[in-house]
């Protein structure tokens, strides 16, 4: 039986590349949040930007948010993974350059070319604009996504290479020898297991995504090469869902790596942990049909599979991670600072955010709830209070001046502002969903407007708090790259 004891590891500063990723993430996150606020205020009839701008902004907000959280997640993953395997800085930077190139293409397509078919570029909408945008604008948008995808393929290939040369295969990276054989305690650390999982699913997702993007580009210019609309939807949602899911699996590495430093207890890659990650590697690829439950033309078995696997996959990693975090924190005498608070609340946010999806993944509920604001309610909860909280927790960790540095009252207020703002904002989405307000409507019925207004105020609170987080991180950039002890030791450990 393996024994686990905690061996202290020094806190490393971030490489310049990681900081570049994070600074860009701050800027884009803030901008996209402001775009989100504009949309919500438009629905609340507090401003009047018109439907065209609403949909342009919605397209930018969707694509921009998904892209930028992927970038921030990649920065977290890369920062910690690099401490175990030999990663290439060149590839890491190449990904950033390709990402920015793609962003410029997407911005040009939406702002100059008026493309506004949403980030899901659902076939056949991009090619059927009825004169609202040109095929060139649609091609620029899809080309931009393709360029961003190529960057992530390179990054994941590099990670696969590094894990294979250190551990001898991705199966070993997932800890299969320890999972299926006797646990000798030598399973790879959680950061490696998570990165392996993300690499496998994202490589598959990106290859499928690249294929459908190229098919749609062909179809855009030669429409006689017809695409089966159902196939296209399946491929797009497979790619999109895998990619956005993978984001939180990258960011959770911050929890695995940082919380143990606070409590001086190890995060174990034990059999249950390994089993849940291996199970999710497979399941994450089969849950996307829960977006397609209303497409009655899909074969029945396909939808039932989405229903069942959607149920099953809600749990393994979430429970193992939530339970693991509680075990690590319970009676550890952990000292709460901005970093440990944000990381801990992120698990709460993730768990709470997964529940509405679980409910909506039930076919009978789905008939009523899907395409209502219930769905944005779900993913904004787990992305904002889960994923984005992890990113800010990581930023506070990097910038913490020393292990005993106290947090200012402003930061603590911002923390609560963030939690309350996000809960209020997402609950309004969920409530609007409950009263059947559809998603993606620029204009709302008078009955829905009060909730839109409440949501807008909560969103303002949330954005104000995020401003504090970002400001704090930017002023501490100089510290973020240095190596020194950051995590406050648990009270029982501190001398």
């Amino acid at each position: 039986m393996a024994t686990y004891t905690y061996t202290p590891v020094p806190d490393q500063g971030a490489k310049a590349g990681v900081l570049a990723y994070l600074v860009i993430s701050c800027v884009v996150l803030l901008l996209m949040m402001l775009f989100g606020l504009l949309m919500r205020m438009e629905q609340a009839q507090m401003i009047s930007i018109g439907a065209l701008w609403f949909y342009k902004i919605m397209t930018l907000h969707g694509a921009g948010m998904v892209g930028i959280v992927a970038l921030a997640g990649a920065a977290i993953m890369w920062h910690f993974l690099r401490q175990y395997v030999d990663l290439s800085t060149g590839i890491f930077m190449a990904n950033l350059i390709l990402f920015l190139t793609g962003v410029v293409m997407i911005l040009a397509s939406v702002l100059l070319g008026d493309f506004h078919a949403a980030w899901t570029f659902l076939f056949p909408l991009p090619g059927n604009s009825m004169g609202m945008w040109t095929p060139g604008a649609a091609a620029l948008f899809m080309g931009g996504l393709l360029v961003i995808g190529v960057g992530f393929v390179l990054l994941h290939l590099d990670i696969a290479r590094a894990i294979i040369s250190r551990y001898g295969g991705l199966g070993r990276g997932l800890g299969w020898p320890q999972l299926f054989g006797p646990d000798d305690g030598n399973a790879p650390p959680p950061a490696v297991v998570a990165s392996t999982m993300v690499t496998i699913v994202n490589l598959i997702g990106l290859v499928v995504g690249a294929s459908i993007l190229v098919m749609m580009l062909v179809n855009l210019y030669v429409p006689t090469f017809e695409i089966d609309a159902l196939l296209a939807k399946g491929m797009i949602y497979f790619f999109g869902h895998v990619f956005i899911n993978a984001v939180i699996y990258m960011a959770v590495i911050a929890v695995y790596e940082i919380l143990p430093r606070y409590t001086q207890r190890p995060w174990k890659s034990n059999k249950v942990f390994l089993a849940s990650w291996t199970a999710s590697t497979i399941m994450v690829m089969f849950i996307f049909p829960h977006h397609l439950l209303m497409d009655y033309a899909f074969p029945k078995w396909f939808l039932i599979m989405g229903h069942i696997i959607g149920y099953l996959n809600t749990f393994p990693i979430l429970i193992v991670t939530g339970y693991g975090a509680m075990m690590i924190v319970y009676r550890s005498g952990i000292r709460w600072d901005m970093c440990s608070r944000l990381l801990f609340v992120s698990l709460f946010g993730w768990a709470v955010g997964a529940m509405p999806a679980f409910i909506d993944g039930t076919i009978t509920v789905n008939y009523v709830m899907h395409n209502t604001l219930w769905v944005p309610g779900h993913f904004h909860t787990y992305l904002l209070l889960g994923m984005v909280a992890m990113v800010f927790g990581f930023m506070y960790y990097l910038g913490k001046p020393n292990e005993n540095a106290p947090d200012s009252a402003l930061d603590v207020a911002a923390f609560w502002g963030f939690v309350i703002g996000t809960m209020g904002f997402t609950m309004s989405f969920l409530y609007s969903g409950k009263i059947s307000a559809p998603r993606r409507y620029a204009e709302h019925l008078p009955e829905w407007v009060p909730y839109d207004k409440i949501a807008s105020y909560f969103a303002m609170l949330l954005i104000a708090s995020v401003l504090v987080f970002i400001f704090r991180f930017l002023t501490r950039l100089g510290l973020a790259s240095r190596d020194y002890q950051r995590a406050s030791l648990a009270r029982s450990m501190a001398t």
Partner: protein
Amino acid sequence: MIATLSHHPGRSALALGVFYLLLATPIARDWLEASMSRHMLVQMPLLVVIGIIAARLVPGRTQDSLLIRFGGAWPCVIAALFASSYWMLPRALDAALTDPWAEVAKFLSLPFLVGFPLVLAWRRLTLIGRGFVWTNFFSMLAVLGWLYIVAPVRVCNSYLVNDQENAGWYMVIASVLLFFWWLGTLLVGGGVGPDKPDQSGPGRTFA
């Protein structure tokens, strides 16, 4: 098989040459070229494989000097990419059936401009380069398959529409199977590609 063959390079080269000639006999050509699927998915890949095996029979040092003469790994990959793309064009298939010179060009270019340079380059490609070539190949093979399936017209004068559709489906299926095979090699470790490089290359795995 390749490993055992290369213990006797002379004999292997002879066997390879005989196989090459066999493929070029009218009977083999008639049968393989009678359907689009066999033409594109059996005969042409076999020609590439002949180039691959031929290159592996060349001693390592000669391979290195050839590679330098050709300008390095990426020019070889790009040459292979262009040569193979050309033979994906329907009219190239038609030409191979009707014009003997095109047929000769096919028999020469697929082994010597695709298989051979790929092997030379493969040893020098980093793992990322290899992964990139593979992932690009999978997605483009699937897209090509789709193009053949949905093409609104008969793309080859020499083959029927249903043949074209079959070929498309086989390409999609092949692309999926190859992708899973490749992922499998990543999962179980070392990577067991058609060309596992020797220790001198920078990359040791990734098929």
